[in-house]
């Protein structure tokens, strides 16, 4: 008995219908996703690097700002103390100014009062001088009156030796002179009494 060898399988595409492709295995899916994972990894790394740089930059800037803020706070505190001192000096200066202006007003008033007294004294001296001058004139007039009356008395003691009309005229003249002297004296007394 003889056996026939099995026939070789026909080449693909000839005769037999094509067999269906096997479903893609896990290895192919991994190969397809790897570029995306790589890209995502790179993106993540870039993002992480950026965030790290940003964080350090913000930290550095924040420290610098904090330093600036502390400097300015110290400066503000120093200025505040200076302001308090200056305000105290200003208050003292205002007090001194008020004292000075008050003193100026007092001195101005004292000067005015002294000026008034000076003028009043000068006017009083002028008045006294006028009164003295008038008194001297009155005294002279009264003296002339007395002299004339003495002269008249002498004439009257020896009346026969003189003309009666002349004696009468002289008597009248003496009377007028004494009246004027009396009037001047009365005026002077009135002025002194006022």
């Amino acid at each position, binding site marked *: 008995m003889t056996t026939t060898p099995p026939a070789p399988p026909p080449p693909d595409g000839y005769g037999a219908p094509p067999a269906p492709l096997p479903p893609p295995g896990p290895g192919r899916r991994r190969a397809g996703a790897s570029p*995306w994972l790589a*890209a*995502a990894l790179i*993106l993540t790394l870039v*993002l992480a690097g*950026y*965030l790290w*740089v*940003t964080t350090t*930059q*913000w930290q550095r*800037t*924040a420290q*610098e*700002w904090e330093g*600036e803020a502390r400097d*300015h706070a110290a400066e503000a505190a120093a200025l505040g103390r200076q302001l308090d001192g200056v305000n105290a000096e*200003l208050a003292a200066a205002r007090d001194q*100014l*008020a004292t*000075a*202006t008050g003193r*100026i*007003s*007092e*001195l*101005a*008033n004292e*000067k*005015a*009062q002294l*000026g*008034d007294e000076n*003028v*009043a004294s000068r*006017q009083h001296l*002028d*008045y006294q001088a006028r009164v003295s001058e008038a008194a001297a004139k009155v005294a002279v007039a009264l003296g002339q009156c007395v002299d004339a009356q003495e002269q008249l008395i002498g004439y009257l003691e020896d009346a026969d030796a003189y003309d009666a009309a002349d004696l009468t005229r002289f008597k009248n003249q003496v009377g007028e002179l004494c009246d004027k002297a009396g009037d001047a004296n009365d005026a002077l007394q009135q002025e002194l009494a006022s």
Partner: protein
Amino acid sequence: MRRGGRLAALAALVALAGSGCGVLPALPEPVPNEIVPSRVSDLEPAEGSETISPDGFDAVQRMAVRVRNVGCDELSTGSGFAVDEYTLITNKHVVADSDNLQVSTYDGRDIDVGTAATAALADLAIVRTRDALPSYPVLAETDPRQGDDVTIVGYPSGGELTISAGRVIGSTRDPLNANLGEVLVTDAKVEPGSSGSAALDDQGRVIGVVYAKTADDDSLLVPISTVRDLLADATAFENVATCEAS
């Protein structure tokens, strides 16, 4: 189909990255070397500084003058106030029967007096000076109304410069017949020597000139309308004749 899906995924990734950049914090600006305020607040002058002059006296005090009338037989004093650099106003009776007028300022400076002229229709006088007067106020446009505040600055009794306050009570016919028309009555206290003082409103404007006081201790003012009318009339004032010693 697969290529299209890849493109869509790439586009989504780029879009995600792009939108993510907007969310990511930006790098900080460098700290400037010099920090200046972005806005300087308006500084206001210190309280009370607006009325202070270089020498510490306010304008109300600086405009007032003391008038000494050296008559031939007697001495009297009055007040006055500047209306410009070389002119002051006082009362007619303050400068009457004068041999010599002497004017001094709030700080005691003597002002050289030129001429004096008096008004016929009011108890007012104008004195021209050769020296400049320290300060002069603004004259009010209208007379004050009843109840308005009034401040009188002058030299009552020939003493220190004094400021007294009160209110306008009203107006009346001049009981002294020294002024034509109505005069103002205020309850601000005045004394002999206050004559010629300026009466000011609450804005420091002259509203009248003190010329007398009543038996009730009220003060009488020549209203500013009369002052303005007379100042505008060049013929309203005549030069004062000096007295002759008796």
